[in-house]
């Protein structure tokens, strides 16, 4: 009962400042904004086109499924040898994710966008001698079919699609040199997640033609944008609102009336701390659950795991609120609490971002080593390597012992991403090659929360008021 009394008191205090109402109003506006969005499925041609590179970029599906693997995105394969010419329906409804389709794919000898190792089919210019006609070595059609299959490999592994078979198409003398393949693809219950979808405003009245992507990618980007910006705003507002809680409680004439109640000081402070967390939990739950619900209704994609963000965002806030509580108890100043908490937030985020950058550099160096080996190039000299550099080691150590706010951001991102992609959070490791150990991040952060709240309690316990 005492906990609920203090929680209710904290809520009353927050409500009195109107910031809480502003926060809920803002969340409601965001939910309404998301609710009016429409997600229109596009054609099978558009969807199957995502498996093939365009003149300017690699396959959309590849980029979508490797979104969290920057090393793969940076060191791209030579994609530019296949084109999707035609999509025919062979079973089921037209433009349905559950139908089977036959794709006609042509192989080109020209290099297009892409860099890295050898292209799949060697370029003519590289094979001809000076003043000679290009020498066309006989093409291994089986190997070429294998290369086409690789375009579907990631999606097939994740059961987004099944490739029934890839057969070379025989052409007459008139089309000598044209190499085409018939690729049979079968839809799965997950195919709708990668189906080409167009975003529209006001329940589809205003389609945004230039914003189309696989449904899961569209949803992920949308949800990430809304949740990231929303949670950032909510946490910042939460820091401001809750920064008043402790100094106000410790005001002369107010604290006396609380300390004479039959409740221990450490419990009083803990309840006040939990009251602040509950406040953020409720406002986050309202916003996340609301966004989740309307996104589910509008798209048919129920990313239930996204609701976990209610807990992770609350935990993120718990770190900051522990600092705010500690500073509030020590200084009894609202302004100091806000400033130092935000400063700590910036510091922890900077450490986290630096660590992420360092981790990415190391992963890219490893990927580069692989490429060099494949291409028969010499290894990168040690002095040109970042891996093992003392600066990186220092960053790792600092990151290891600091509160992991940035890790939580990345965890949130990965949860949303995985949930929209496959709907199974067990696939998180499939999408993420970073060295982050999430339980370790949570544990280290929880220890810091304990340290800050513990120190605050200790000070509060011995302080004369």
């Amino acid at each position, binding site marked *: 009962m005492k906990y609920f009394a203090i929680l209710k*008191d904290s809520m*009353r*205090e927050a409500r009195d400042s109107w910031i809480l109402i502003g926060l809920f109003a803002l969340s409601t506006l965001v939910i309404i904004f998301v609710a009016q969005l429409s997600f229109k499925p596009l054609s099978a041609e558009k969807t199957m086109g995502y498996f093939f590179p365009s003149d300017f970029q690699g396959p959309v599906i590849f980029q979508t499924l490797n979104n969290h693997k920057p090393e793969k995105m940076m060191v791209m394969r030579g994609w530019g040898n296949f084109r999707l010419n035609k999509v025919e329906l062979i079973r089921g409804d037209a433009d349905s994710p559950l139908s089977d389709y036959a794709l006609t794919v042509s192989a080109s000898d020209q290099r297009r966008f892409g860099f890295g190792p050898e292209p799949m089919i060697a370029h003519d210019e590289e094979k001809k001698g000076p003043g000679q006609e290009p020498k066309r070595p006989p093409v291994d059609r089986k190997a070429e079919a294998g290369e086409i299959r690789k375009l579907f490999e990631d999606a097939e592994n994740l059961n987004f699609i099944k490739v029934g078979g890839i057969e070379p198409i025989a052409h007459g003398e008139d089309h000598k040199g044209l190499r085409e393949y018939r690729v049979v693809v079968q839809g799965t219950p997950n195919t709708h997640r990668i189906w080409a979808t167009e975003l529209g405003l006001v329940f589809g009245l205003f389609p945004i033609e230039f914003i189309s992507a696989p449904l899961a990618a569209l949803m992920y980007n949308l949800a990430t944008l809304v949740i990231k910006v929303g949670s950032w705003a909510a946490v910042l507002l939460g820091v401001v609102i809750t920064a008043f809680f402790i100094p106000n409680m410790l005001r002369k*004439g107010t604290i006396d009336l*609380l*300390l*004479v*109640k*039959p409740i221990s000081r450490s419990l009083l402070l803990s309840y006040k701390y939990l009251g602040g967390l509950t406040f953020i939990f409720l406002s986050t739950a309202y916003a996340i659950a609301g966004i989740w619900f309307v996104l589910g209704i509008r798209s048919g994609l129920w990313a239930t795991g996204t609701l976990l963000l209610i807990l992770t965002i609350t935990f993120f806030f718990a770190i900051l609120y522990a600092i705010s509580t500690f500073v509030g108890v020590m200084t009894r100043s609202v302004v100091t609490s806000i400033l130092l908490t935000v400063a700590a937030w910036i510091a922890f985020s900077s450490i986290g971002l630096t660590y992420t950058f360092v981790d990415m550099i190391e992963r890219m160096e490893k990927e580069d080593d692989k490429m060099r080996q494949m291409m028969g190039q010499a290894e990168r000299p040690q002095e040109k390597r970042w891996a093992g550099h003392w600066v990186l080691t220092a960053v790792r150590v600092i990151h290891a012992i600091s509160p992991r706010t940035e890790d939580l951001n990345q965890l949130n991102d990965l949860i949303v991403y995985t949930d929209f992609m496959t709907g199974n959070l067990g696939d998180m490791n499939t999408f993420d090659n970073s060295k982050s150990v999430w339980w370790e991040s949570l544990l280290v952060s929880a220890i810091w929360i304990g340290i800050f709240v513990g120190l605050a309690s200790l000070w509060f316990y011995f302080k*004369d008021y």
Partner: protein
Amino acid sequence: MPVLETTDLRKRYGRIEALGGVTLSVKEGEIYGLLGQNGAGKTTLIKVMLGITGGWEGDAFLLGEVAGTAHVRSRVGYLPEDHHFPDYHTGYSLLDFYGQLLGVSSATRAKRIPDMLEQVGIADRMHYKIRTYSKGMKQRVGIAQALMHRPEVIFLDEPTDGVDPVGRRDIRETLLELKKHGVTIFINSHLLGEVELICDRVAILRKGKMIREGDVATLTRQKGRFLIGLAPGQVLPVAEIRNLGYDATPLEDRWEVHLLDGQNIDAVVDYIRNKGLNLRHLVEKRQSLEDLFLETHEDQSTRRDKKRDRRDTVEPITAVEVHEEDRRS
């Protein structure tokens, strides 16, 4: 068993000695007033008893338990001097919040809160935000919150501060009613007239040390100074009284007799009767609590004369009572 008891209670704030060995005892059902200048240690004493301040030395017991424990605090009501109620609360919600912290059940709170606010005279404003209350109304809410859980002991730090005369009277009556029900009340106040009206006993603290303690009547009595009034037209033979060895002085239509050590007013009364004079008025002079307080605090050598000029409170008591007092002393 005393409800509140301290023995050689000491408390320091760094180099400042707030309490320098206070020993006192308050009985059940007593209204006890603690007087002293700002910084004398009155509030510190209450804070020690309630556990708001720790790190003290000596003994301090409240309701038979070591002072300041959570259990004993549930049996105590408190109104601090510079209270600051969260102004986002209404009078009702504040009492509800404190009631929950005190473990008062929901049903009891629902019944008792309106009653309490009615008792202190702000029932019609109980659902208004506290920020809209006047100082006096806040004080009334403070009294209500201190009483709502029916405590056995109540500590009130300047309870009538900012309250109008009618409100002060209401509070006095409330406290006297509580006393009738056996509640022990401990008051810190600068309004000495108020203290004098309701306290059974008072103590005066100075620089953390108790310098006077006793019941109000005894402390304010000016022992050995009597006012004598005779029937109309009769005159006290001052010269003859002086010849008897007593110091007598005319004072408007009465006479003040100052007894020296070992002297007794009975001899003067007998003399008056033997002379055939009719005694109509005999009182032992009293000083106000304020005078007593000032006398205690002011420099005795330089300010005593000024203090005498301010003496004005005279309360009649019967001769029999005087005799009884003298016999006891």
